[in-house]
Structure formats: structure tokens, C-alpha cells
């Protein structure tokens, strides 16, 4: 199995977990998503965030190695790219990580910074989830169920 292919679907899975657990913590209106179990949502969100950051690091290092080796083969499954949806994913990922780190680190000490970054983190989630829906629509051919192989005529 190709490395970029695995990364893509790991990425999708982790982002889905992050989105669902994050929405549950967005406010009292949203709590029903995880039945107001904020403690679980918090643990799941932070653990998934660590995996998300690690995946980002792996993709960036992978790209650096590709650049150093002058590898110009097309990797259609890679989550980051120089243009289009890959660039959008890259920029949103960096903003998610930076704002998430600020929220995590300064939640108790700097309330102004936390409030501002939390606002960005939340609004960006809506944009990113909407963009994923668009991405799914554009790549909906992946959802086609495999056709049965024709049986050989006896």
C-alpha cells in the first residue's frame, strides 16, 4: 500500500474525530453531539490533536525528503500540495495547530489570547468541515462500490 494513500485516510479519520469531539465542546448548543460528556470529548480531542500534529510533521518531513531527492513523481493522495485543496489544507492545518497550542498552553494564564484563538479555531472548523464536504463531492467517484468481476463463461 502506498505511503501517501495511508497518510490521506489516517488524516481523514483523525480530522473526523477532531471535528466531532471539538464540536461537542463549542458551546451549550453543541454539547448534544457527545451527550454533554465534555470530559471524554476533551481527552479524545487532545489525543487526536497529538496524532494530527505528528501526521503533519511526517507529511512535511516526507515532502522535504522528496525535495532533497528531487523526486518529481506525482502523489495524488498527499494531503498537502502547492496549489488548490492541498494548499488550503496546509494553511488551515497550520492555523489549527497554532491556535490549538495557544488554547492548550494559555487557557489558565492568558484569557485574551485564549478567547481570540478559540474564536479562530471554532470558525475555522466550520469552514474546514464545509470544505471537506465539497472535497467529498468532487471525489465522490471513490464511493462507488466495486463492480463484481464477470464470471468466466463455462
Amino acid at each position: 500500500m502506498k505511503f501517501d494513500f495511508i497518510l490521506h485516510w489516517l488524516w481523514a479519520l483523525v480530522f473526523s474525530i477532531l471535528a466531532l469531539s471539538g464540536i461537542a465542546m463549542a458551546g451549550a448548543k453543541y454539547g448534544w453531539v457527545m451527550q454533554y460528556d465534555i470530559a471524554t470529548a476533551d481527552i479524545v480531542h487532545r489525543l487526536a490533536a497529538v496524532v494530527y500534529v505528528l501526521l503533519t510533521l511526517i507529511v512535511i518531513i516526507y515532502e522535504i525528503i522528496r525535495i532533497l531527492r528531487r523526486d518529481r513523481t506525482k502523489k495524488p493522495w498527499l494531503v498537502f500540495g502547492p496549489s488548490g485543496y492541498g494548499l488550503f489544507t496546509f494553511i488551515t492545518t497550520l492555523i489549527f495547530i497554532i491556535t490549538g497550542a495557544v488554547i492548550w498552553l494559555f487557557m489558565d494564564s492568558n484569557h485574551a489570547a485564549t478567547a481570540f484563538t478559540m474564536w479562530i479555531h471554532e470558525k475555522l472548523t466550520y469552514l474546514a468541515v464545509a470544505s471537506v464536504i465539497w472535497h467529498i463531492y468532487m471525489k465522490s467517484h471513490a464511493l462507488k462500490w466495486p463492480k463484481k468481476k464477470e464470471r468466466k463463461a463455462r
Partner: protein
Amino acid sequence: MWMQKKWFTLLIWFVTTSFFFAFGAILISMFRFGPTEQEAMSFMMGMMKAMETSLMGLSMQVKEDANVQRLVYESVQFAFPLLAISIAGGVYVRCRRKV
């Protein structure tokens, strides 16, 4: 081709559906009435529980405990050089290998 495997298509359907659920949940939550007093209370209770039992609470305890802070500080002193050496080693091995 992995895209032609049935179990894999099933996984894609599962992941995709979860995103539609997330999008639906956002829209429903955003445009519905409320929150009611009961929902606000449940949310606050959830937050309080998170402060006590989850990583949120643990991180607060770490901030208050000087011994744990010192331990974390000293661990980081070891961790960063080890991490740097590991990454450099990994990159070296990956670049040396002719695949």
C-alpha cells in the same frame, strides 16, 4: 488496487458519513433555538467534570505542582536532543537507501 477492495470502500463510506454527520450537527446546532437552561447546566456540569477527571484537569494539576513541573522540565531537556538525533538518523537512513 486498494480502492477496489470492498472493505476499503466501506471504510471510505464510514469516514465520509462521519463528516456529513459533523456538518449536519454544526448546522442543526447553529440554527436551532436555545440553548435551554437544562442544556446550559448539562454543558457546565460537563465542563466541571472535565476539569476534575480529564486531561484538562490533569494539565491544571501539573501547572500547580512544582515537583511535576521540574520533572517535566528535566524530561524535556532529554527529549529534545533525543528527538533531534532520531529525526536526523531517520532522514539519513531514508536518504542512504536507494529505493
